């Protein structure tokens, strides 16, 4: 294997890892704060991608306006789901799990009707390839990876450097005590779910020009997101970043050395190894 090939493999792994982080971030946040395994996450991701198609491609809205609309809709959907479904079931993990699966199935079924079965595609707003030292990276992927970096930094700042973040962490530790100390846990939970939905929708919207779209695309996204948050440690933002990059690298270098089939197996093998050796995940708490 030449050095150039290895460099290209590493670059692909890094950027793909960033795309995985972008996809998994919202799932991590909602689990981290509220301990809800949100199976609807993949469908919100899919809706983000489909909405960018509808608004930007079909209706030809300006891109910033389309993103603003997606963020507003995701906030509204997050608040509605938290208030209407999650709040009444908080603390009942099995009921929450079933409810989120139900939401996922409803959204997916309606989406097949609304968007149709044919694959859709969003033309790239950043066509072209950046070539550095023989390593080629499409600009649209680099842009999405940059967005992932910004969102991770922003989320980290929010959770660890702001009052609302402090309240979120307090709820995560012990909701009852947090309430007694004056934290409005319902409000904080609503913000966390809305934020999780926004992150999922943005993830879909930013990867839309990279892949083709259909209403079933959320399934693949949520499968990979679960693998990442399990490996990283449920609810850990840093763990999600680490696991995303690790999986990206494992797939890329694995495929380069062993082939695509073996690389696919490697990802699951890594997940099983982490579950056996460190069940709480790489950076999760026991």
């Amino acid at each position, binding site marked *: 294997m030449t050095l150039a090939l290895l460099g290209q493999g590493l670059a692909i792994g890094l950027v793909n890892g960033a795309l995985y982080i972008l996809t998994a971030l919202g799932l991590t946040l909602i689990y981290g704060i509220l301990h809800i395994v949100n199976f609807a996450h993949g469908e919100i991701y899919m809706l983000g991608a489909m909405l960018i198609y509808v608004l930007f491609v079909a209706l030809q809205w300006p891109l910033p306006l389309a993103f603003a609309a997606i963020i507003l809709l995701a906030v509204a959907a997050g608040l509605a789901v938290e208030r209407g479904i999650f709040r009444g079931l908080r603390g009942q993990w099995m009921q929450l799990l079933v409810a989120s699966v139900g939401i996922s199935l409803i959204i997916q079924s309606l989406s097949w009707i609304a968007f149709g*079965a044919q694959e859709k*595609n969003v033309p790239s707003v950043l066509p072209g390839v950046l070539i550095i030292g023989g390593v080629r990276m499409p600009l649209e992927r680099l842009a999405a990876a940059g967005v992932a970096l910004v969102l991770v930094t922003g989320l980290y700042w929010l959770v660890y450097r702001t009052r609302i973040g402090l309240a979120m962490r307090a709820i995560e530790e012990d909701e009852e005590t947090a309430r007694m100390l004056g934290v409005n846990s319902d409000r904080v939970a609503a913000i966390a779910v809305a934020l999780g939905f926004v992150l999922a929708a943005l993830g879909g919207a930013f990867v839309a020009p990279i892949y*083709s779209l259909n209403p*079933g695309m959320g399934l*693949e996204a949520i499968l990979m997101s679960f693998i990442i948050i399990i490996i990283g440690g449920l609810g850990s933002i840093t763990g999600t970043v680490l696991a995303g990059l690790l999986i990206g690298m494992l797939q890329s270098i694995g495929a*380069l050395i062993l082939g*695509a089939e073996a690389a696919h197996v490697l990802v699951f093998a890594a997940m099983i190894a982490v579950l056996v050796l460190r069940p709480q995940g790489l950076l999760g708490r026991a």
Partner: protein
Amino acid sequence: MSRPLLAALTFAAAALTALPSSAQESFKIGNLSPLSGPAAAFGIGINRGIELATEDVGTFTVAGKQYKLELVPYDTSLDPGKTVAALNRAILNDNVKYGFILGSGVHGAVLPIIRQHGFFDIFMGAMGKEITNPENPTVFRFMASSDQLYYTFTPEIYKKLNIKRVGFMGPNNDLGRADVRMLKDVAGRLKGQGVEFVGEELVEINAKDFQAALLRLLAKNPDAIDTNASPTGTVGLIAKQARELGYKGYFISSTAVLEAKALVGIAGRGADNIVAYRIWSTSPTKLYQEIADRHEKKYKEPTLGTVWEAYAATRWVVEAVQKAGSFDTKKVAEQLAGSSFQFHPYGPATWGGEKSHGIRRQIQTPLPASIIKDGKWEPLEVRMGVLE
């Protein structure tokens, strides 16, 4: 008007209205195909082909009774488990004995059910004698088989485009593995002409990111990547991502009917030099053009690739049922295998495969090859041989 007369007239009117529906029964044709997901265009195309054929067939008589066609669609998502469930539902719940089943990758799972019930499988899929063989007498492949295309077409294409080094990227399923075996065999036979098989990458069927897998394949400098067994959306993504990695060669898709518009939508100029074997860049017959026009008028979009073959298959099967004078699938199979058909949009059709598959269950029609140039299909002047 007196009351008895009014009653008599009402009775007569009711009897006349009821007569056609009681005399006309449904001949159900199932469509067990992906109607959702990346391969949905294939299944939707089959639905539309059946619908257009239904308009042309109208009512028909079998053993003195009048029938009309009824399409019964089942979404399989190209998933073997879902196809098994759909076939069981079709046979046991809906009394459907005839149906399109799309995808050779799902056939390993459904063939035992087809054999058990004598289900008439209007098969739309690739591979070769693994599916159409004497053990499965009610399975008719209404599109070109992989071996037919690989062995009789591929050498001509390689010669025409001066392809010497060929790689494969396809789904990690029965079809992908069968196709890569065949491609290796073809490359081996063409060794004397300098053709070499350089490598293969089998990926998950729903994968959307191929960069890592492509990297290894592209390192072997192929002149052409065979993307057989992948639907349009997947081929578009493979082309786009390979071009981003600097690949300038050909993509060859033997069996899947690709949609140029979708390919160009996904890959942009990167779709240029995608070669497909079953795409007509110009209408081969008057009927072909008529169907394209009717499709566009009825569905408000260009004709999907599977429409023509589904149209022909539906009409041909109905003709065979009429000639057999029975819906018994084994009798109809015998009748069909001995027949030829003049109303195929591609041109005159007959059955072959007696020597290669051990049974005449492989359709033989004129077939083209086309290549995308500047976002549109252009004819690639090569001739396909006949599968004996």
